């Protein structure tokens, strides 16, 4: 009885972990693809079946060649060996006797001489067409043959003995690869596609929005929570009512306002309008309401100013709420896309934020997934890393604000 129950629990836990692990895999896998693809070279991205880990072809320095040579597998007599590619396109042809076109002999074009010599090449009529004849040596015998088909093959050599060579189709040859990685994509994206500047823009915008919103929300929240003044409650109702209103309603008038005050294409338009939010004010008010009145009254009797009370009593007591608001605002500012898309013109490269630059990159480098995903990593990783460090605040922010980034 006891052991069957234990077995039951064990079985149940196993199933639970498999389900949880499966979901975790689904959640994480796209990010792994992003990371590993961004470390690939572009040739490595278009494999089928797709491969997760970045690989690169092994190259080898061989005497007599300046550049390192790529290494390929060569199959000979059921034996697989690693050869270097010493010549990319060797012109070859299949030769055959005119009356036996089925049996062909592969020869390099440069090593074959026309029958009768270069001066007076002989020809033969085949199916009403005139074909040149070439001397082909087969088993020590020289037989005149015509060209059946032409192609180009790669010349592969044994790296230890360059005289042992094999002709083989380069595109069909399997390269010798090793697991490796390269940060070239990141370098190219930050330098050529100006993602470096975009990163700096996004950082500045985010810092500005977070600091600005914290300041106005804390001050306003304190006023709503703890100071009596005429019109306070009516104003607060107005604030509350506007929380429901979706941003899209504001987008055209806000754009027109930016046109009026000359902020179109300016980073100011991404920062200043976003530091006054009803939601942040509401959140801070709720946090401040939870602090008991007595402490504040005692401080007022001691002659402390309201600002001192806010700084010395209310701020330390509401750190979790402040951190939650900061986290939420950080994500919102860092990830915002719609408003920057509207207000920063696509031609203005220097004022692009990361999301905008990424969108442009997605179109411009569509055939280099390694570049696109390196750009995605630059935009995605900072919030993820900060999330891993300060996980608690993110979860608190989610449950206390209920707002989605």
């Amino acid at each position, binding site marked *: 009885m006891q052991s069957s129950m234990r077995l039951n629990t064990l079985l149940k*836990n196993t199933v639970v972990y498999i389900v949880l692990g499966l979901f975790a895999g689904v959640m994480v896998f796209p990010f792994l693809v992003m990371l590993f693809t961004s470390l690939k070279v572009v040739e490595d991205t278009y494999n089928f079946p797709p491969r997760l880990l970045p690989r690169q072809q092994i190259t080898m320095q061989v005497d007599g060649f300046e550049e390192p040579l790529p290494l390929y597998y060569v199959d000979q007599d059921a034996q697989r060996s690693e050869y270097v590619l010493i010549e990319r396109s060797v012109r070859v042809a299949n030769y055959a006797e005119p009356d036996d076109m089925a049996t062909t002999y592969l020869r390099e074009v440069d090593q074959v001489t026309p029958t009768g010599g270069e001066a007076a090449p002989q020809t033969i009529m085949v199916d009403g067409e005139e074909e040149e004849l070439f001397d082909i040596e087969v088993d020590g015998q020289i037989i005149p043959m015509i060209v059946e088909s032409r192609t180009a093959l790669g010349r592969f050599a044994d790296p230890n003995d360059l005289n042992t060579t094999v002709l083989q189709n380069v595109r069909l040859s399997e390269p010798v690869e090793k697991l490796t990685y390269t940060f070239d994509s990141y370098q190219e994206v930050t330098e050529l596609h100006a993602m470096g500047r975009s990163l700096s823009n996004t950082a500045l915008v985010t810092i500005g929005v977070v600091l600005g919103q914290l300041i106005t929300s804390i001050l306003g929240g*304190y*006023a709503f929570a703890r100071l009596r003044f005429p019109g306070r409650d009516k*104003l607060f109702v107005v604030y509350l009512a506007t929380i429901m209103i979706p941003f899209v309603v504001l987008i055209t008038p806000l754009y027109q*306002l930016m046109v009026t005050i000359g902020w179109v294409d300016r980073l100011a338009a991404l920062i200043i*309008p976003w530091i006054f939010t009803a939601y942040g004010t509401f959140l801070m008010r709720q946090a401040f309401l939870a602090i008991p009145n007595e402490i504040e009254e005692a401080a007022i009797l001691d002659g402390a100013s309201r600002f001192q009370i806010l700084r010395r009593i209310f701020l330390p007591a509401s750190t979790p709420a402040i951190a939650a608001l900061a986290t939420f605002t950080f994500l919102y500012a860092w990830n915002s896309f719609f408003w920057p898309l509207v207000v920063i013109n696509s031609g203005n490269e220097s004022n692009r934020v990361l999301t905008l630059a*990424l969108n442009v990159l997605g179109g411009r480098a569509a055939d280099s997934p390694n570049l696109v995903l390196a750009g995605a990593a630059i935009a995605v990783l900072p919030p993820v890393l900060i999330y891993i460090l300060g996980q608690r605040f993110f979860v608190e922010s*989610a449950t206390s604000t*209920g707002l989605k980034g």
Partner: protein
Amino acid sequence: MTATSSQSRKLPGVDQEGSSTQRFLQIAFIWHIIVSIAALVGLVYLWTSNVEFPVWQRVVASVIAVILGVASGFASPLIRSRDHRGRVLSLGVNYFGFLLLLLSSMHLFGIFTGIDALANTFGRGVPFIGFLVSGYLINGFGERAEKYPARQRLLRQIGNVIMGLSLIGFLFAIGLLQGVIAILVQVNTPRNIALALGVLLFGAFAWFMWRGNVAKAMHESSDDLEMLNGYLFLSPNLLGFLFFFAGPLLLSLYVSFTNADGFGNQEWVGLANYGEIFNLDFARLASPDQAANEVLDITVYDELWRFSIFGSSFVIGAQDKLFWIALRNTLVFVLSAVPFSVIPALFLANVLNSGIPGMRFFRAVYFIPSVAAVVGVALIWQWLYNSTVGWINYFIMTVVEGINSITTAGLLTDPQIGWLSDTNVALFAVVIIAAWQWLGFNTILYLAGLQNIPKSLYEAASIDGANAWNQFWRITVPLLGPTTFFVVSTTTIQAMQVFDQVFVLTRPPGGPGTSTTTMVLYLYSQGFRNFRQGYASSIAWVLFILILGLTLVQFQRQRAAEAA
């Protein structure tokens, strides 16, 4: 806590006014008369000058001038009679005038647009931020060493010095000096000198009026102090809120009744925009495949939909066909993305809540997609969706081959889905991304809701013989009602406004064809591609009403469920 007040308000003694305070109040009396006159002059200039101001700017400026002038006019005699209301008015006028002039000068001196230049030099300041953080850490380390006061003080001082120095270094690195010089150089035209002077004067009067000795002389009450503090604390927030939120909101309603084009041209068109959105025509067809142009006025209407009922066929035409397509796509998106991100979340939250070890790890992992930028996520999925070398089609192929190898050969064929090129699938591809990204967030909300259900309920149910399945349906689901309402309504609101995913994932945005054109995407293309901003605003209001309606319906159902 140390509460040291710089204000002498609470200090004993000094019953009679100091002579300097008296002199200041005399000057303030004159100052407010000057301000009133200046406001009047400004008002006259505003309506008589040849300079063309837009009407709304003229109206706003006039309102401000009238308020400032009248308040200042009342403040003057009240200050003379030492009435406490005079001080309140004076503070209001001076503080508001100070802010107004300060912000205008900042605007005119290009401080806001200078943020662009700051972004360029910002990178140079980054190392100093590192120093700043290390100073903060040293400081925080000092706080911990409570047992050794001397060491604590030393660490704090070192931390403060490092923080101060790195802050100064940071400001210089990002070009504070050049910025200040660039601003000062501009104070050379009469207008700019007047502005700078105005800022200083209003600021100085506000400051001296605020000080304790004046407060005492003007018989300040504690209610006054609290009220002034209230307005002072709220002022940055309120002014920004009015300017960047409430104002544009009203403007938005107005714009939706105009044909604004985004370049400053706009005419009142009444309800024409809304009329165009909702203009539908309905006609009976002689046969199910009769051409629509035989019964509809095709100069106005495009065929939207045809259907047969009770043996007769009908056709519906719409003036703005694309709006209705966008509406349909949005509703399809909402109706699939919400269940896909809510139901698995409820399931996962329950599994996580069973108290097995490792719950925190899984919770953390599930939340990761929520913090990532939608643009980045969409690009990752774009690659996963690649129809030839993408992972998703590869997984499907592997599964299909696996099933085929187990059963008799060839039961299933590999679908080779063109995720982003097939008009029937593209919207669903967007749904998958959205559900994937919102799932973790909803799981966390559900987990928080589950923590609030008392354990005793489950224990009682177990004793009564209810199995886990019954407990889930009879206890967990009903008690999670408020959480479900919250999760569903926030997800719905978010889904109604889907834009980023579609815009980045599909090329051209909304494609292929119109298969992923959503309401907000359509709004964007009307407002910022075709520059029909009046029309875009009407779409926005229709969307808002829809969202409001959906939320209210959910709210009603939630209330009804609670009552039952």
